[in-house]
């Protein structure tokens, strides 16, 4: 080699220095590039610039609304009650009036007193206070319902659970926390106050997953968009075993199908109540929306609840999730038509077709069950023995469990029409089997004279099973006039002490 850096530097020392400074400049710019990348990465952390600092258990939706005006404005739209679909809607409709048979099916259980079609989340607190099921508690009489009933009604619940402990929260009667639970279902039920990410706030869901050996924390964003709903829109019961008191529990340990859940209950001879007419040990299904949705084609296609019930909307050049949680039928273009290219009328008709067919099947099963309850009563009246009745009562329990599982989830006939039809078919089969065995008992005692009272209206049906609706309503009026205002006053005083920190 003629020359090398070594020689150049030895001959001209300044060239060495030049090399040194060139390197300095190069490294300097490399550093600048790195810091630019860091800066732009950091920007992502400041995308969300809140106006109000939201505390960990902030229950007041309007405070969250300060930072998220669009989401809050659409959440307030859940107050709307003007939508009607074929069989349901978002208004206050008396379901028992529409279908008095249900009074008989729930005889001996609070649902026979009062049962309305569901309204929007906005009414969660108002409606639970108004329903005759929670009774008219005052200083001397407690509510017939446990405090557990508040669990799904308000973002005040996570706050109270953190304060009192979970089991302590469930204990006692429903009126215990009347002044504490005042904000309707809202932001803090599903969102983390710091990151705004979706978050599970109700222990029952976390525990149900743990018992199945699954970790909720590993759920993807898409799964979370269903799981936050699954905190409440599921089948549940109040567990009193092993020192627990009215502990909210999801019965999924052996699976989520109607049979698997039934097996879970059978394993410890659980029943929600004993039927007032037939004396059967009954189960009450409570809106198994999530479980049934998981058996349908839309779940298989990878959808989450939010995809249809909370679709994206754009307003003035901004897109956001519509927090007006509602029936997609009120919103076909933004929910169904994202994937389906048929017309609105066609899509609506497809849903109605499924709903009509399921309604047909459920009505058959309803009639069978009403007859079965009265026939079982007749069997007892003419002297049937416990041993003869045992199997019949079990069949009635199984048949009505299937009826309730199919009916209680209002979306079932769309979410999984095939599964719902399957469930109802099994229910009809079991109800008829019970009635066939009852006929044998009538033959044995030679008395076929079954008496079924007139139950053609809600009032007559309630009278027939001895519910004094007049008195319940009168007591409720007094409760709403005297007790609730005191609750509200206390709540107002308490919340006045909460700070609001504007940033």
């Amino acid at each position, binding site marked *: 080699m003629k020359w090398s*850096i070594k020689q150049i530097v*030895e001959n001209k020392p300044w060239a060495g220095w030049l090399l040194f400074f060139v390197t300095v400049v190069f490294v300097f710019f*490399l550093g600048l590039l790195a810091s630019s990348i860091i800066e732009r990465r950091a920007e992502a952390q400041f*995308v969300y610039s809140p106006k109000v600092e939201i505390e960990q258990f902030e229950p007041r939706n309007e405070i969250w609304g300060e930072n998220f005006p669009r989401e809050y404005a659409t959440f307030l739209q859940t107050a709307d009650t003007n939508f009607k679909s074929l069989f349901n809607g978002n208004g206050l409709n008396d379901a028992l009036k529409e279908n008095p048979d249900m009074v008989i099916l729930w005889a001996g259980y609070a649902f026979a007193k009062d049962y309305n079609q569901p309204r929007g989340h906005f009414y969660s607190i108002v409606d639970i206070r108004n329903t005759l099921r929670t009774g008219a508690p005052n200083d001397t009489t407690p509510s017939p319902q446990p405090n557990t009933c508040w669990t799904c009604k308000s973002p005040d619940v996570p706050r109270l659970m953190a304060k009192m402990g979970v089991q302590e929260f469930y204990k006692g009667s429903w009126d215990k926390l009347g002044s504490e639970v005042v904000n309707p279902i809202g932001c803090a039920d599903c969102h983390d106050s710091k990151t705004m*990410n979706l978050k599970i706030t109700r222990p029952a869901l976390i525990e149900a997953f743990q018992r199945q050996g699954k970790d909720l924390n590993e759920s993807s964003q898409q799964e979370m968009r269903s799981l936050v709903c699954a905190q409440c829109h599921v089948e549940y019961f109040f567990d009193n075993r092993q020192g627990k008191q009215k502990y909210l529990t999801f019965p999924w340990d052996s699976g989520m199908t109607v049979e698997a859940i039934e097996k879970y209950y059978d394993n410890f001879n659980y029943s929600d109540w004993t039927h007032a007419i037939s004396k059967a040990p009954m189960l009450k299904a409570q809106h198994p929306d999530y479980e049934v949705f998981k058996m349908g084609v839309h779940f298989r296609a990878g959808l989450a609840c939010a995809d249809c019930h909370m679709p994206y909307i754009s307003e003035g050049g*901004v897109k956001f*999730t519509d927090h007006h949680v509602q029936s997609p039928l009120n919103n076909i273009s933004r929910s169904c038509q994202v994937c389906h290219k048929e017309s609105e009328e066609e899509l609506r008709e497809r849903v109605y077709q499924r709903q009509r067919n399921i309604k047909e099947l459920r009505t058959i099963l309803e009639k069978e069950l009403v007859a079965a309850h009265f026939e079982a009563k007749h069997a007892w009246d003419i002297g049937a023995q416990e041993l003869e009745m045992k199997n019949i009562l079990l069949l009635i329990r199984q048949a009505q469990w299937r009826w309730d599982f199919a009916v209680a989830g209002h979306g079932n006939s769309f979410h999984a029409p095939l599964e719902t039809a399957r469930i109802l078919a099994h229910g009809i089969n079991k109800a008829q089997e019970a009635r066939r065995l009852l006929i044998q008992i009538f033959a044995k005692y030679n008395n076929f004279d079954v008496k079924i009272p007139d139950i053609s209206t809600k009032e007559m049906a309630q009278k027939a099973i001895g519910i004094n609706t007049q008195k319940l309503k009168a007591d409720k009026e007094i409760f709403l006039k005297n007790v609730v205002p005191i609750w509200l006053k206390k709540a107002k005083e308490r919340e006045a002490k909460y700070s609001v920190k504007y940033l």
Partner: protein
Amino acid sequence: MRGIVDIFIPPKKWKFYVIIILGIITGLIFFLFYVSKAHSYLSDNAETCMNCHIMAPQYTSWFHSAHRQYANCNECHVPHDNVFNKYFFKAKDGLRHATIFTLRKEPQVIRIHEAGKEVVHSNCLRCHGDLLTDNKLQNYNGNTTNINRKSSNCTFCHRETPHGSVNSLSSVPNSRVPLPESAVPHWLKKMITK
């Protein structure tokens, strides 16, 4: 070869310092790779595109579209005719993106360029080609006659698929997108906060 290396051999008394400085430069380059998540660009995950937060409108509109079930970003936005072409296009596009992003030259509404359009169009056909070649659809789809098949892009009409019509940088202020977390690893954070 030996000769070329000889050119760069520093004088004896420099050797130590040169090694240190070279180490610093190499470390800095490694750090650049780490902080820009350069390795993630080899994958097909949609999360990779969220390394730049300005892609949030595109990510979110895709996430709320029917294409979410079947196609991630790369499925449409890079060529799939062969693996070399795929990564060549990715690198070309990526370097342009990185440059614009670093210089803060991104427009308020990001629009696709001609090269990208062609790629998207050929990817439409990769999955939906039947719509053009199926004779049964000729009557149903009168505008896809031979002339039109060659001369127009799918997106010319289907322009809202799947990103919708609203795409400005500020169009999804509250979207829950998988933004990159802090570059400081968890174990270090724990040590610092203790």
